[in-house]
């Protein structure tokens, strides 16, 4: 009895240890590069190249920070503001547009509905790089190349947000509530703005976060559309500085520090909005 007990327990203990080891190694794999970024941002150039990251000398976090914002006449600050404008404004408008459309797909019946929805889903899989050249030509026709709008308008388009909006609307907005409000005499648009939108809150935040991440990450479109450095988002600006770094190494510490600061807004957004997107993600994934 005891013999079989111990042979059963031992593999299970071994299994637990293996499972925990695998997870721990994976977490180290994801965390260590970020930790490297934090440590490297605190070092001056000599220490950066000496790979002596753990030594406490050569600490120059503050110096790097002020260098970053002084470099090229404070360009980084501008990029940061640009990125925030593109991403926060774009994600807010884009999420509202997509979720409204998803809601309409869920709650209303009209002809060719599923065909139209199929078109929306098809749009999800079209590569950005395919649209870039025509968008560039259209923007140049309209005189919008190298302006804020050339980057801002295309990123509002989020077909996956429409899909999520439909899923959330089915999950969160009961038809009975809408019927009741209709009997009370609410018009259809008031119904959406006053009743449905509130219930769609977590879904809206999820779509907002998805899009915020996507726009903050956006690199290809600004690269195609913008030549004026003053309009760059952080991603494109750091790319440009990194290419200068191979010639003038004084750019390395500011690129590292700039990368660290560029990570902060998304982490903040994910932490602050955690309650919403966790429930939103579950709804989207389970479907």
């Amino acid at each position, binding site marked *: 009895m005891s013999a079989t007990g111990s042979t059963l327990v031992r593999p299970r203990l071994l*299994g637990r240890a293996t*499972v*925990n080891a*695998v*997870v*721990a190694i994976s*977490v180290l794999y*994801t*965390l260590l*590069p*970020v930790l*490297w970024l934090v440590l490297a941002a605190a070092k001056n150039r000599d220490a950066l190249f000496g*790979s002596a990251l753990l030594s406490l000398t050569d600490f120059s976090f503050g110096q790097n920070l002020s260098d970053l914002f002084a470099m090229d006449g404070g360009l980084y600050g501008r990029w940061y503001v640009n990125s925030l404008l593109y991403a926060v404004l774009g994600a807010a408008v884009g999420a509202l*547009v997509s979720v*409204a*459309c998803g*809601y*309409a*797909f869920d709650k*209303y019946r*009209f002809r060719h509905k599923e065909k139209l929805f199929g078109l*929306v889903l*098809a749009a999800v*899989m*079209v*590569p*950005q*790089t*395919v*649209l870039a*050249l*025509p*968008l*560039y*030509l259209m923007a140049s026709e309209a005189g919008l190349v190298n302006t804020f709008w050339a980057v801002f308008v295309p990123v509002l*388009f989020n*077909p996956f947000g429409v899909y999520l909006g439909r899923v959330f609307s089915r999950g969160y907005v009961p038809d009975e509530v809408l019927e009741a409000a*209709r009997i*009370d005499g609410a018009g*259809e*648009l008031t119904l959406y703005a006053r009743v449905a939108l509130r219930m769609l809150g977590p879904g809206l935040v999820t779509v907002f976060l998805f899009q915020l991440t996507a726009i903050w*990450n956006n*690199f*290809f479109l600004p*690269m195609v559309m913008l030549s004026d450095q003053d309009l760059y988002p952080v*991603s*494109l600006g*750091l*790319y440009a500085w*990194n290419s200068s770094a*191979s010639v003038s190494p004084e750019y*390395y510490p500011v690129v590292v520090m700039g*990368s660290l600061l560029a*990570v902060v807004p*998304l982490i903040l957004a*994910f932490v602050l909005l955690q309650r919403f997107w966790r429930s939103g*993600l*579950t709804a989207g*994934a*389970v479907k």
Partner: protein
Amino acid sequence: MTATTEHTVRVPAPRTAAPSARARRTARRRRLGAAGVLMAPFFLLLTTVFLIPVGTAAYLSFYSDDQPGLGFGPERTVFVGLRSYAAVLTDPTFLGGLGTVALYCLIYIPLMVAGALLLALLLDSGVVRLRSFAQLGLFLPHAVPGIIAALIWLYLYTPGISPVVDLFARADITIDFLGVHTVLPSIVNIALWSNLGYNMVVFYAALQAVPREVTEAAVVDGAGPVRTALQVKTPLVRASIVMVALFTLIWALQLFTEPMLLSQSSPVINSRFSPSMYIYDAAFTRNNYSLAAAASVVLLLCTVALSYGVTRLTSRNSTAEEAR
């Protein structure tokens, strides 16, 4: 205003007569109007930044700006039929790029799906300590923009800056992470690092929705934890697996950011390393719009065909299983 009165009049006496056909028609029209208003902004965007550009790309691929002889006179746009497609499809640099991305997908997608699923199953098994910390740690790279993930790893691949290369060097191992044969695995690593945690969270959410009775029944039937995970839980989250595979595929085919950044430091990556880089190079370096458009259409068709293949393949599997 009239809407309110009509409703309030109709409601108190619903039994006396069914709402007249006219009232129903106005209600229906009103709803259609509301649907139109709610959908209009999105479909306006869909038309301007999606349908017209796709159409323009297709159009451009069949036309070309031909310079008249000797370069004098105005440029004319002429129909060239499939000439641009022939040029793209016989261009060894484009075919090489397609091959590179195909190889990249073959390495990256199985690793990503299997890795994320494995981690989600492990976290779902209930034996992992500090589970929410582990989840947060794994998810963190998702908050790192792609270009910055590429920057971090570029530095971690660069001898002299990288503690990793340094560590290997101390063990007398020299690895060139940006060499001819290592650069593709190095790019896979960047993408894997960026997206593993996010996909793990998607799988984990799906696993959480598996009813506990199902797994308990499997345990009662004598299935060990490994068999429960692979033969009971995994089939139940198939929909999520297909979704993750599909999105990973669509993104992988667009491969651009990582090689673009690495090309600043590695001579191995040329300006036409992937189809997306080829398009960028053709359109904005060589200003050959019809070539770029043809390459775009080819990439688009590949994406659509492969996505369709993935969904078809998996749905056929599922119907076969249901029939069983």
